[in-house]
C-alpha cells in the first residue's frame, strides 16, 4: 500500500529532547477497543503540526490525553524531554498547554471578560484583565471588546474569546480542534495569520482539521492516524490534498460523479416572504425569506453558524409552524401552519444538524429511531394492522438503511449513541433517503464526518436530485456547497440572499453576502466598495 511506503520510522529517537512535547508508545484501550495503538508523536517549538485522520481514527482520544482529560493505558508523555504525567487539564494548563475546543464552552449571558476570568486560577483584577484582553487581542489580530456580552457575538468572535482565553495563560502548546469549521473564508484567513504569528514566537500548535487544503497551506508537519495507529508522518507542503486523503482513508476517495438531471418541472418547495419571530434572546428572527426550488435541483444555503440556520430549518420542517399557511408550499400544497408530521406526509424529509438528541434519540436502538420520522408518514411506518408498532419491520428497515449507506456498527441493532458521528450521520441521512422523498432539507450534511463518509453522503444527495427530487442543503462548508449545489444563496442575520447559479458564484462574493451585502444590481457597487474597504483595513 502507498501508505506504508510513506511511513517514516521514528528516526528522532536520539534527538527526542528537542521536542516540546512528545508522546511515546501511547496506547489507550476502552474495554476491548483500542483507540490508540502505540502512537508516537513529537511536536517542536514553533511548529504548526497537523493531526489528520478519519472520524474514529483516534485523534480526539490522543488530544484528550495530551490535554489531561483522559489517561493513557500504556506509554508516556515527555515535556521538554522530561517524563510527565498529565493527570488532568489543570496540570496541562500549568505545563503550558492550551486547547480550543470545537464546541465552545462559554456562558452566553456573561461578558467576554467575565468568561475569560472564569477560566483563570486564583484572584484577578477585573480592570487589569480587561486591559490585558484588549491589548492581547489587538496584538494578535483578534479584536475583542471585553465588555461585550457573548450572546451578541458571532461564532467567529466567540472563537476569538476561546483563543484569547488560552493566550492569556501564555501557552507553549496550543491545541486547536477543527477551528475553521465555523468561520467565513475571511475569518479563517485572519486565524491563519494569528497562528503563524504565534508559531513565529515559538509557540507550538497542534492543528486538527478535515480541510486538507488549509493543512497544506498552514502546517509544517503532519501526523496521520488510521484505526488508532500512526500510518504516516509527512510534510504536508510537499503533498497534495488527494495524497493526504489517500493516506487518511487508506484507499482512493471516490470522486463525486456529477449528476445529469433536468432541472425544471413542478416546484417542490416554494417559500413566500416567510417570517419567523425569534423564539428567545439568543435566537435569530427570519424576515421575508422567499425561494423556489424545482425538481432535480440542489440549492445550497451558505452562511456562518448563528445567522438563522436552525430557525430556517425549523420553519421549513414545521417544527415551528407559522400562522400564514401560504408562506410555505411543499409540492403544490400550502402547509405553513401545518406541523412536521403533515409535511412529511406531503413527501418532505428532514435531516437536522444535531444528530444526537435531535435527529436521533441517543438511548434508542437504530430500529426505534427509524420510527421517529416514519410513524405517521408512509406505508412503511412500522405500524401493524391493529395500530401497534411493528418493531420487526423497523429492524428490517434499519438493516436495509445500514446496508445501503454503509453504516458500520458492532452489533445488529446498537443504541444510536454508541455509533461514531460519521456512521450515525450516514444512518440519519440514509433513513430519510430510504423514503425516496420529493423534497429533502438537510442541515450540515457532512459536519464532523470523515472524507469517505462525506463523499458517500454527497453522492447520495446528487443521486436523489437526479431522480427528480429537490434538495435544500444548509451548509457552512463552502467546498461542499461548490461541489454539489446547482444554485447558492446566503443566509445572513435572518435574511436570505437571492440564489445565484453556482458557476457564477465565487468565494469572495459569498464572503461579502455572509457579511450582509446583498448583491442586487445596484448593490454590486456597494459590495465592491465594501471589499475595497476591507482591503485597506488589512
Amino acid at each position, binding site marked *: 500500500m502507498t501508505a506504508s511506503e510513506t511511513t517514516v520510522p521514528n528516526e528522532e529517537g536520539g534527538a527526542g529532547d528537542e521536542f516540546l512535547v512528545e508522546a511515546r508508545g501511547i496506547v489507550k484501550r476502552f474495554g476491548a477497543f483500542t483507540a490508540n495503538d502505540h502512537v508516537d508523536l513529537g511536536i517542536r517549538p514553533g511548529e504548526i503540526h497537523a493531526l489528520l485522520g478519519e472520524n474514529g481514527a483516534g485523534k480526539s482520544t490522543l488530544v484528550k490525553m495530551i490535554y489531561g482529560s483522559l489517561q493513557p493505558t500504556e506509554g508516556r508523555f515527555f515535556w521538554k524531554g522530561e517524563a510527565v504525567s498529565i493527570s488532568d487539564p489543570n496540570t496541562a494548563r500549568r505545563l503550558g498547554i492550551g486547547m480550543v475546543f470545537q464546541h465552545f464552552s462559554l456562558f452566553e449571558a456573561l461578558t467576554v471578560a467575565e468568561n475569560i476570568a472564569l477560566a483563570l486560577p486564583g484572584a484577578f483584577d477585573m480592570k487589569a484583565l480587561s486591559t490585558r484582553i484588549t491589548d492581547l487581542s489587538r496584538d494578535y489580530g483578534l479584536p475583542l471588546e471585553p465588555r461585550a456580552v457573548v450572546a451578541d457575538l458571532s461564532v467567529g468572535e466567540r472563537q476569538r474569546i476561546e483563543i484569547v482565553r488560552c493566550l492569556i495563560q501564555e501557552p507553549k502548546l496550543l491545541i486547536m480542534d477543527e477551528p475553521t469549521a465555523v468561520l467565513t473564508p475571511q475569518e479563517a484567513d485572519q486565524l491563519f495569520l494569528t497562528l503563524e504569528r504565534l508559531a513565529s514566537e515559538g509557540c507550538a500548535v497542534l492543528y486538527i482539521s478535515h480541510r486538507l487544503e488549509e493543512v497544506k497551506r498552514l502546517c509544517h508537519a503532519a501526523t496521520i492516524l488510521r484505526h488508532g495507529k500512526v500510518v504516516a508522518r509527512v510534510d504536508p507542503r510537499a503533498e497534495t490534498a488527494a495524497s493526504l486523503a489517500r493516506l487518511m482513508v487508506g484507499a482512493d476517495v471516490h470522486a463525486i460523479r456529477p449528476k445529469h438531471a433536468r432541472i425544471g418541472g413542478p416546484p417542490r418547495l416554494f417559500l413566500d416572504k416567510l417570517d419567523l419571530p425569534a423564539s428567545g434572546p439568543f435566537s435569530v428572527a427570519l424576515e421575508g425569506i422567499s425561494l423556489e426550488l424545482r425538481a432535480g435541483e440542489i440549492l445550497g444555503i451558505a452562511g456562518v453558524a448563528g445567522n438563522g440556520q436552525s430557525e430556517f430549518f425549523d420553519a421549513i420542517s414545521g417544527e415551528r409552524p407559522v400562522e400564514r399557511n401560504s408562506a410555505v408550499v411543499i409540492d403544490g400544497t400550502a402547509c405553513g401552519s401545518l406541523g*412536521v408530521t403533515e409535511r412529511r406526509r406531503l413527501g418532505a424529509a428532514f435531516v*437536522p444538524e444535531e444528530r444526537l438528541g435531535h435527529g436521533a434519540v441517543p438511548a434508542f436502538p437504530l430500529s426505534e429511531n427509524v420510527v421517529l420520522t416514519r410513524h405517521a408518514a408512509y406505508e412503511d411506518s412500522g405500524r401493524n394492522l391493529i395500530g401497534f408498532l411493528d418493531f420487526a419491520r423497523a429492524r428490517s428497515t434499519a438493516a436495509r438503511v445500514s446496508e445501503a449507506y454503509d453504516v458500520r456498527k458492532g452489533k445488529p441493532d446498537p443504541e444510536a*449513541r454508541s455509533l461514531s458521528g460519521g456512521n450515525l450521520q450516514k444512518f440519519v441521512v440514509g433513513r430519510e433517503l430510504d423514503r425516496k422523498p420529493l423534497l429533502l432539507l438537510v442541515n450540515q450534511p457532512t459536519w464532523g464526518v470523515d472524507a469517505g463518509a462525506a463523499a458517500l453522503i454527497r453522492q447520495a444527495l446528487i443521486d436523489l436530485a437526479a431522480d427528480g427530487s429537490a434538495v435544500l442543503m444548509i451548509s457552512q462548508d463552502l467546498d461542499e456547497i461548490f461541489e454539489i449545489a446547482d444554485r447558492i444563496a446566503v443566509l445572513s442575520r435572518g435574511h436570505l440572499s437571492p440564489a445565484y447559479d453556482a458557476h457564477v458564484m465565487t468565494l469572495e462574493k459569498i464572503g461579502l453576502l455572509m457579511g450582509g451585502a446583498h448583491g442586487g444590481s445596484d448593490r454590486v457597487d456597494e459590495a465592491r466598495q465594501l471589499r475595497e474597504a476591507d482591503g485597506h483595513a488589512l
Partner: protein
Amino acid sequence: MRFELEKRSERSLVMAWASPVIAVVATMITGGLIFAILGKPPLTALWVFFVEPFSSLWSLQELVVKATPLILIGVGLSVAYRANVWNIGAEGQLTAGALAGSMVPILFNSWQSPLTLVAMLVLGILGGMIWALVPALLKVKTGANEILVSLMMVYVAQLLLDWLVRGPWRDPHGYNFPKSVSFEDWQTMPTIGDGRLNIGIVIAVVVAIALAVLMRRTIKGYEVRVMGEAPRAGRFAGFSADRMVIFVFLLSGGLAGLAGVIEVASTVGQLQPNISPGYGFTAIIVAFLGRLDPIGVVVAALMLAVSYLGGEAAQIALGLSDKAARVFQGVLLFWVLACDTLILYRPRLVFGTTPEAAR
C-alpha cells in the same frame, strides 16, 4: 489510588436488572446499622422487618392489600417519569379521588344499584385528574415548576378532606368524631375470600399490564419514551411537549384518584382525616425501584408493601417508632438512585501515579 466512573457506550442490561438487587441489599445493610445504633439486635430486627410479613396467610393478604394502591399509583407515575414529567403530588390526587368518589355514598346514600360502585370509581378517577390538571396546565401555560405545584396541591387536598369530614360531610350519628358515614355493602369493593383482600388488586394488575402494552407496543408509549429521552427529537418527530405533560398528568392523576377511591371503598370504608399512610409518596420509590416499567412496578410495590407491614411489626415487637418504615423507604430510594448510575457508568479503581508522584 482513586475511584473513577467510566462512561459505558451503551446501557448495561445486566446492571439494569442487578441495580435494584444491589440497592435492596445495601438497604438491608444500612438498616442493620441503623438498628444497631438504636440499640436493637440488627438480625432480629431485619427478620421482623423483612421476613415476618411472609410468615402467615393473613400477612400475605395484607401485603397484597397494601400493594394495590402502590401499584395503581406507581404505574401511572412510572409513565409520567418516563416522559420526564415530575408529578410528586400523587398523594393529593389520591385524596382528591377519594373525596370525589365518596360523594356518591355520602350525598346519595340511598342510591343502590350495580352502577353505584362504578360511578364511585369513575368519579374517583375524575377527581384525581382534575387535581393533576392544575399543575399540568400551570406548567404548560406559565412554565410553573410541576414538582412544586403538584406537591403543594397535596396539602390543599388534605386540608379540604379534613374540613369536609369535620364539617359538612361528618356523620350526624357519629358522636362528633371526624368521620363520614360508613359505606354500605354496595358502596364498597367486592372482597376475594373472607378477608380484606378485594378486587382492587385485579384492577391494579390489569392496569399495569395495559400500561406495559401501551409503553412497549403503541405509538403513545413510544411518544412518552421519546419525549423523556430527547424532547428535541420528540418535536422533530412531530410530538407536542405540552400535550405530553397534560396526558401524563391526567393518566397518573387519574390512577392515583382511582387508588384513593378504592382505599376508602375497601379497607377504610368511610372518609376520615387519614385515609392513606403516604401511598402517594411511597409510590415514587415504587416507580423508580420498578425501573419505571409497569411490570417492574408490580414487583416493587410488593416489596414496598413489606416495609409497611414490617414497620408495623417492628413497632409491636421492638418498640420502634412508626417512622422507621419511612426511614427505610428513604434509604431504599437513595440506594436505588445511586445504583442506577452503574447502568451508564462502570466504576473502576485506578492505581496510577499522581502528578505529584511523577515529579
